[in-house]
């Protein structure tokens, strides 16, 4: 069975599909690579659904293999990032074949000859459905393998209206956000531009070279982009910036809107477990949003956002499914604020709440104020133990060049005192060379 997305690739013909270190590849060439992958699969003579790891980035060969595996009803495990993590992940999912891709080429390597044993995979196989397995960073440090119906996931992109706005691939190939960008861009016939790496310099170079119009990015990356003070002409092609994966401090959104007056900012929201959804923003300068996707139900239970979607994962292969209720709701672990008109705002992860002597706060409220202090390049707020107040608010600050620590420390506290309740004012201000990880990194 030829999938609708593979047919669409063939139909888009000479239009550019992917650009990166591998050159510029047209949709017709991509369709040819899908054919190659189909032939390689057929040559294996597999009689039952089989698990394949596809290792690579957003390259043509890796993309072609994912689509060929989906239409043949196999299970695909996209992997990229640190190769040292791959062996544990391959073992966790009992991968039988490895496709090692590099740009246009791919090598098929056997790994083990055991049929998929897990009940979730067998259930997909029983109804002829392909599977997509993604990993999330588990809270315990052991990655959680999530399995979903690959065909159902791809089907959500079929009704997208065609356009030719080039899109940048910034989120990972092994990440729901990165795959959402990939499939969403292919489905509409637009060009996906893959930067050499995820540094600001490489991303700006890719945007300028391919006239990228749509940039899906995290608030952390957008803050770095502002700090780099890139000449506007380099980024003149940008029309839309979508942001997600972590809460956006409103002060950062205001600075971004001032720096990119012609760009529309769209907040995306999603989880690896439920898929990615676009949102409506009632006010341009606020991060309140509405979830009004027909495929997504939501509710707020005790300040926690619960989601139920058509495309949510079937479950975890290697973890308990306690975050799913019996009637199919997924407890996101995201703490949200609900406004009278029904709009919601993501405040952060439930576990990130800081409790200062019984009074509570979320890091993002403080980060929004600290980021706006002159001389502060970036910051992270966390709770640290205190013998006096249980927890206390600690902020790690990255200073701009030539700034005096004492001056910024004092300005930072003054700004927080004038804008925040007393218990939210950071007591510990540490100056660091770089802050770790993404702002309010989600641990799913």
């Amino acid at each position, binding site marked *: 069975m030829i999938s609708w997305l593979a047919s669409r690739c063939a139909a888009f013909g000479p239009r550019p599909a992917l650009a990166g270190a591998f050159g510029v590849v047209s949709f017709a060439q991509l369709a040819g690579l899908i054919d190659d992958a189909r032939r390689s699969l057929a040559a294996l003579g597999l009689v039952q659904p089989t698990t394949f790891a596809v290792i690579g980035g957003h390259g043509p060969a890796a993309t072609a293999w994912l689509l060929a595996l989906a239409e043949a009803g196999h299970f695909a495990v996209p992997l990229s990032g640190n190769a040292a993590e791959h062996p544990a992940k391959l073992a966790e999912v009992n991968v039988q074949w490895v496709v090692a891709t590099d740009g246009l080429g791919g090598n098929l390597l056997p790994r083990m000859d055991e049929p998929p044993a897990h009940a979730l995979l067998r259930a997909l196989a029983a109804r002829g459905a392909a599977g997509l397995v993604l990993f999330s960073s588990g809270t315990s440090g052991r990655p959680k393998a999530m399995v979903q119906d690959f065909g159902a996931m791809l089907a959500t992109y079929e009704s997208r209206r065609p356009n030719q706005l080039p899109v940048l691939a910034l989120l990972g190939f092994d990440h729901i956000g990165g795959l959402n960008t990939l499939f969403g861009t292919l489905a509409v016939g637009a060009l996906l531009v893959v930067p050499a790496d995820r540094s600001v310099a490489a991303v700006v170079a890719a945007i300028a070279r391919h006239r990228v119009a749509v940039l899906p990015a995290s608030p952390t990356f957008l803050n770095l982009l502002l700090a780099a003070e890139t000449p506007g002409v380099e980024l003149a092609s940008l029309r839309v910036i979508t942001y997600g994966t972590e809460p956006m401090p409103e002060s950062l959104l205001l600075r971004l809107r001032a720096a990119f007056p012609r760009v529309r900012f769209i907040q995306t929201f999603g989880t690896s477990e439920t898929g990615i959804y676009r949102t409506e923003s009632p006010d341009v300068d606020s991060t309140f949003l509405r979830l009004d996707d027909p495929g997504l139900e939501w509710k707020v239970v005790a300040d926690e956002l619960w989601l139920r979607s058509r495309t949510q994962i079937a479950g975890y292969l290697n973890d308990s499914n306690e975050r799913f209720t019996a009637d199919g709701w997924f407890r996101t672990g995201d703490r949200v604020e609900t406004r009278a008109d029904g709009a919601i705002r993501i405040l952060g992860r439930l576990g990130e709440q800081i409790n200062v002597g019984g009074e509570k706060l979320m890091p993002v409220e403080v980060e929004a104020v600290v980021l706006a202090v002159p001389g502060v390049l970036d910051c992270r707020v966390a709770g640290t133990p205190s*013998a006096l107040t249980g927890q206390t608010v600690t902020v790690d600050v990255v200073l701009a060049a030539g700034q005096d620590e004492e001056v910024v420390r*004092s300005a930072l506290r003054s700004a927080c005192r004038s804008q925040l309740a007393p218990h939210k004012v950071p007591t510990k201000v540490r100056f660091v060379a770089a802050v770790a990880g993404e702002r309010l990194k989600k641990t799913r």
Partner: protein
Amino acid sequence: MLTRPEALQLVLHRLAALGRELGKPELERADEQTRLFGETAQLDSIGLVTLIADLEEDIRRATGRDVVLADEKAMSRLTSPFRRAGLLADHIVATLGAMPPA
């Protein structure tokens, strides 16, 4: 290591800076006897945590040692080291003195 006069100097310097930030001129004129925490004192619990955090940073810069001034032991002392500026200076000297050599 810090001498008692150096430790007191750090405390008074920090109190003055905090006084400017908080708009409390009494703290800018602080001395040995200035009450820090407790009834009729100048600082609330957040203010005291702030003072201690800044002092720990000052001590790290002055001596290269990472000290924890507010721990369960200090909190449970009969005479709180956080009651007066002079007692806090004593506490700094004693805490540094009790640390194993670097």
